[in-house]
């Protein structure tokens, strides 16, 4: 075995009294990849930043041994780190829009590394090199894009540009911190392919991610972190195929997918119902609860040109049924939700609720009937008045404020939290409050707009379980909007696939995802990263 490229022993990082990372050790050979997975607060990002000397002044860092390319780098100064960063270790951050300087052309940013590390050639040569780098990472029209500002590039192109700048000096190691988290699934697939190609060229890769499926596809070795500690380590096949630690098993169980349909994702919440109905359709003789016909909506952009964001969207939703809407950003799924909620007026087309007119009513006529349909947003925090305590948030939507305790019980929140303000709650608690508020008016339909996208996988599992329970217990219909195909497949009876404002495919969840007809759906389904290893007990 060749000498390790990087060897780390006993890394500890603390911020004041808080220990963020405890005793992290690993080594990595050239051409191999290591993934560090964990939920928020696990210390995975702090570990990544510490590896390139970016922990920040307030952290206390201790390490028994840290060698890179056979050289001791455990006590480098800031100035010395600057020589290593970019040149010997490339670092890719999450969210390229924030990480790229918005006022500088992308090419300047990519060429920054070579310039700072003493570019020997001429300016023209540097420009040519930048274009070459952008072309290598698959940015279309690299000459043009190099001259454009970050906001003129798409999200995927920005992330590629960031990777190009990390690769500019040909470092032997690339560290990527959540490189695909903000990206649509088809773009994510392309970026992962690019990282994989980089590794195949002999670079070592350290990938930080919360997404187990992404990691399972990319990594040779895996570290699972929780609360600053490594709870499990080993080759990917072993960690994913035969997890030893309870936490790893819990994380893997929590990933929603086709396999998890009808099953519970979270071990902590016991099923409330003995029998979960397998598939729901409208009982004979009863019309759909919600009926949307030929919805069209366009918005005028800053250039005064009208853009159609929703085009001829029609669907029915039966009582107790869950209809999933999937699509990538800009597909019109959230606008469809707002049209259904009558928070936006359609240019044409109608929505009927409970067999009666809904979208054609005046706001005054509609107001008393708004109790029939409620909404859960992606970011619960911004959907609460920051001054209000939980009790008031939930009570405000209920007919009778006395129901608050009952509603909190229903969503599994302790009654003692009723005096807390939204900022004083955890992410999972906030989404439970949002669900309690959505249930308060006793609606027959709940529109869920990306309700679990901002949550860690184990919290997501609990919230999905809760939604499924409540739907079955209260016989409420869900219009469930998500970009995450696994989540939608797990929860939905039927699915609409939207692309560029149109419904390109619809049918039962299994039919759409297991046997997609439209080529957009096929591409979408193919792009979803799946856990690359079957668990033994699952396979058995």
């Amino acid at each position: 075995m060749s000498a390790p490229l990087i060897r780390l022993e006993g890394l500890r990082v603390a911020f004041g009294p808080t220990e963020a990372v405890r005793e992290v050790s690993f080594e990595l050979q050239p051409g191999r990849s290591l993934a560090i997975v964990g939920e928020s607060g696990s210390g995975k990002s702090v570990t990544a930043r510490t590896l390139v000397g970016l922990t920040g002044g307030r952290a206390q860092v201790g390490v028994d041994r840290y060698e890179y390319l056979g050289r001791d780098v455990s006590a480098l100064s800031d100035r010395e780190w600057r020589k290593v960063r970019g040149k010997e270790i490339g670092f890719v951050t999450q969210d390229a829009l924030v990480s790229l300087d918005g006022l500088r052309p992308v090419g300047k940013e990519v060429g920054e590394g070579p310039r700072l590390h003493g570019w020997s050639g001429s300016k023209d040569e540097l420009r040519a090199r930048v274009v070459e780098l952008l072309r290598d990472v698959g940015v279309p029209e690299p000459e043009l894009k190099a001259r454009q500002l970050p906001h003129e590039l798409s999200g995927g192109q920005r992330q590629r540009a960031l990777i190009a700048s990390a690769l500019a000096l040909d470092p032997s190691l690339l560290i990527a911190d959540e490189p695909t988290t903000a990206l649509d699934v088809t773009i994510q697939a392309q970026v992962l392919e690019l990282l994989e190609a980089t590794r195949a060229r002999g670079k070592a890769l350290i990938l930080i991610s919360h997404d187990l499926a992404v990691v399972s596809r990319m990594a040779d070795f895996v570290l699972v972190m929780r609360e600053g500690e490594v709870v499990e380590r080993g080759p990917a096949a072993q960690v994913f195929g035969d997890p030893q630690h309870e936490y790893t098993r819990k994380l893997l169980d929590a990933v929603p997918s086709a396999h998890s349909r009808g099953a519970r994702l979270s071990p902590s919440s016991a099923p409330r119902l003995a029998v979960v109905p397998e598939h729901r359709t409208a009982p004979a003789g009863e019309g759909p609860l919600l009926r949307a016909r030929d919805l069209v909506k366009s918005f005028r952009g800053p250039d005064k040109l009208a853009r159609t964001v929703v085009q001829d969207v029609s669907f029915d939703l039966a009582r107790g049924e869950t209809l999933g809407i999937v699509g990538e950003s800009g597909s019109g799924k959230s606008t469809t939700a707002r049209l259904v909620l009558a928070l936006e007026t359609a240019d044409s087309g109608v929505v009927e609720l409970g067999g009666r007119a809904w979208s054609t009513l005046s706001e005054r006529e509609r107001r008393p009937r708004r109790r029939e349909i409620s909404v859960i947003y992606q970011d619960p925090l911004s959907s609460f008045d920051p001054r209000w305590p939980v009790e008031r948030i939930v009570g405000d939507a209920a007919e009778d404020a006395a129901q608050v305790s009952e509603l909190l019980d229903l969503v599994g929140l302790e009654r003692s939290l009723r005096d807390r303000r939204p900022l004083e709650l955890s992410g999972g608690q906030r989404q439970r409050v949002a669900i309690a508020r959505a249930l308060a008016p006793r609606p027959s339909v709940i529109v869920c707009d990306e309700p679990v996208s901002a949550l860690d996988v184990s919290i997501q599992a609990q919230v999905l379980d809760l939604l499924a329970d409540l739907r079955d217990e209260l016989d409420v219909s869900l219009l469930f909007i998500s970009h995450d195909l696994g989540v939608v497949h797990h929860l939905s009876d039927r699915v609409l696939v939207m692309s560029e404002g149109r419904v390109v495919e619809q049918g039962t969840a299994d039919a759409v995802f297991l046997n997609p007809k439209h080529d957009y759906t096929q591409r979408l389904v193919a792009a979803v990263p799946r856990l690359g290893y079957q668990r033994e007990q699952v396979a058995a």
Partner: protein
Amino acid sequence: MTAITLQPRAARASRTGAFLRSVPPGVKLAALVVALYVLAAVAPGVLQPHDPFSTDLDSSLLAPSLQHPFGTDQSGRDLFSRVVEGARQSLAIGIGATALSFVIALVLGIAAGLGPRLVDGGVNRFLEVLFAFPTLFLALLFVAVFGQTVTTQIVAVAIGTAPGYARIIRGQFLQVKGSTYVEAARAVGHPYPRIVAQHIFPNAMRPLVVMFTLGVGQAIVWASGLAFLGLGVAPPSPEWGALLDAGRNYTTSAWWLEVMPGLAIVLFALSVTVVGRHIQERLEGKVKVQAL
């Protein structure tokens, strides 16, 4: 006006000790200074070693000493006592001008932020004209026409500062109006006036508490600027700006006539700003983040 009364919940009796410990020493000092100024405005006699108006030509233009900490002016009046005496008028100008400015700004800002698009456009154009027009000149004009009294000072400074506040208030209302929680309240089926009263108004107004504190310090500096140009409250009033104006002719021979009132103004503006910023941080929950 002190920091304590503006603190939310945290200041309840049972938590007073913890609250005091959580305030940085610099902010405590600033709050103490603000309290002294308020005392000077309310009961100047407590702090005055001499009568601020009694002249004594034998001791004119004395440099600062133990007996006259800020020195004396050309008529032999004790400058420290005069600065203390001036606090009432200066604070009145600061608070009055900021209050009036806020009233004007609120009317314009709310009309623009909550009203129909046509009103928003109209108010915006009006504000742009005010911005383009040199506001100091406008204020000078006003004082020149209506005379040099405390009232005209208040109105002049209010006119000068209102457009800026109106812009901020408009932005606040627009931001809250477009927030998800307002949409959520709409989805629940509450009528719009109720949403305005329950959500939009209180949330949009929240940052204004802090802006007001910061504005008082700035208004006093504005008024002093007018006074220095000879358009402040007429002498022999000991208003701080008027003191600066009176000392202008002695800058080379008796520096303390300029420097001491100037320092008094700077110290007040600085302390109020420090206290205001601290309240702002508390209201926005930054303290919580630091504690983690």
